[in-house]
């Protein structure tokens, strides 16, 4: 079985000439839970967009499920339908992802676009709404929801597609502690179901808890580490260098001491 994604020497330059990703070589196998960690602006979101065929590399190649993932390939309706049904993307900003007029339409949008029949779509919408505890909000417009509810709805809008691969961009940002715990539970379930998940985050503790592999992007937009979370997290100097942890002074009563901190 081919890997879900293979990136070979992927570089991406913005029109302004600024480099967003540099020589990325990455293979993501079926069922893997990969956390892509890096400081702000390191290229995590761009990498997810490339994996989802929403941005295309300036040089290098991307393969998805054994086939080249290019702009031309996505013009082919059959390929696009197959690819989109396999990969779901939860965007960092829920406001961007929620574009329908109410929560029910939002949950139904993906499966309907994939051509599923209405009875099946309705079943998925109700199931996911109940699971995410947003069943009382189905007739409300997304703009009237709270930040946490929006995030749940954004995740739900991808869950109804029952994708094999889930890409999550900073999924825990803007979530209250209870919702964060709920999200970790969701990731755990996906892992048990054997789904692939790629999570872009700079929250090291969340990444360590949910992923079985950690890819570190430096502020120069290159992959500087790739391995099990415990091995990556042990590289203290590297994490300091890529701005994922920092030295932090603390005072306990009259004693001040310094240690590393991740945020």
């Amino acid at each position, binding site marked *: 079985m081919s890997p879900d994604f293979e990136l070979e020497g992927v570089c991406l330059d913005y029109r302004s000439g600024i480099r967003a990703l540099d020589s990325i070589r990455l293979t993501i196998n079926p069922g893997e839970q990969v956390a892509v960690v890096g400081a702000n602006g390191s290229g995590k979101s761009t990498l997810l967009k490339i994996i989802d065929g*929403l941005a295309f590399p300036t040089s290098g190649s991307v393969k998805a499920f054994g086939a080249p993932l290019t702009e031309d390939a996505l013009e082919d309706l059959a390929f696009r339908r197959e690819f989109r*049904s396999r990969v779901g993307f939860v*965007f960092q900003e829920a406001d961007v992802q929620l*574009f*329908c*007029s109410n929560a*029910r339409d939002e949950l139904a949008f993906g499966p309907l676009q994939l051509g599923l029949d209405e009875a099946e779509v309705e079943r998925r919408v109700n199931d996911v709404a109940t699971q995410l505890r947003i069943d009382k909000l189905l007739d409300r417009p997304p703009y009237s929801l709270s930040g946490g509810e929006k995030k749940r709805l954004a995740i739900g809008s991808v869950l109804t597609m029952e994708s094999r691969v889930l890409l999550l961009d900073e999924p825990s940002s803007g979530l209250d502690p209870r919702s964060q715990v709920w999200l970790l539970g969701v990731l755990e379930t996906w892992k048990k179901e054997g789904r692939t998940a790629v999570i872009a985050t700079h929250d090291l503790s969340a990444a360590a808890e949910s992923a079985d592999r950690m890819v570190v992007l430096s502020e120069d937009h290159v992959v500087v580490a790739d391995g099990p979370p415990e091995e990556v997290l042990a590289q203290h100097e590297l994490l300091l260098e890529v701005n994922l942890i920092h030295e932090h002074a603390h005072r306990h009563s009259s004693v001040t001491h310094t240690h590393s901190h991740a945020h």
Partner: protein
Amino acid sequence: MSFPALNCQGDIAPAAPGRRRRRRSLARRTADSLNRAISEVFENEELAGRPGLLQRLDARVKLASILLLAVTASLVHSVWTLLLLVCAGPALAAASQASAASFARKVWSSAGLLALLLALPSATAYITPGKVLVPLGAVSLTEPGLMGAATLVLRVVAASGFCLLVIWTMRWTELLHALSALRLPGVIVATLAMAHKQILTLLRTVEQTHLARESRLVSPGTTREERAWVTERMAFVVRKSLKTADDVYDAMLARGYSGPVRTLVRLRTTPRDWTWLTLCAVGCAALVLVDRLLLAR
């Protein structure tokens, strides 16, 4: 890293009593207007959820019947028939559990006033000669001029009142589904849905930008500076909306969008809807007939 030394210590002196309040700055007034606009959207949502006459109707039937009333307003010519239609607006608003007084105030203060300003010059003897009713020299108001102006104003008020009823008694989502059911292309409906959502998101952004500035402002600038600030923010919003539009399009692509938009909505009509539509159709036809008879005299 070092911060500037603290320059304000101790208690703050109370404001001098009897000071006249300064006129609010243009930026502040803009922020307040934005806040009002957002609040109105939420109030309309609440109003649209009440169990009133129009709210209980099927969205398509409601839209069709109100369209019928608006078309009738443009077909009739007699001031009396138009007056009847103008009165129908507040009556329907009251039957839909909305305040008839607020309804009338809203319609007359916006559409009514604008139509009056536009129509008034045509009531003068200079443009419409005839029997002078209000002598004001070269700009005396004539009987046919005033009748023409009254017809225009009443027609505008009646039609805009019916439009307001749609806004007040229909959730935005219902309206979009009704438009969809009435065969408006899916792309246009989807664009309208996204535009509505984006406008609200951007309204919030602009309001917060204005408030962020206000929180750091000691004294408002000159009117010119204020205008420049508001204009700059407008440019900022345009840039931001373009960026957001790109992001939203990416989010749509990621969930399989490839052109036509399908939704789950299935609208159903009941005998009540058909009764209402028939009554409206008969009533409108009767009004047009009566109007013709009145004009024939």
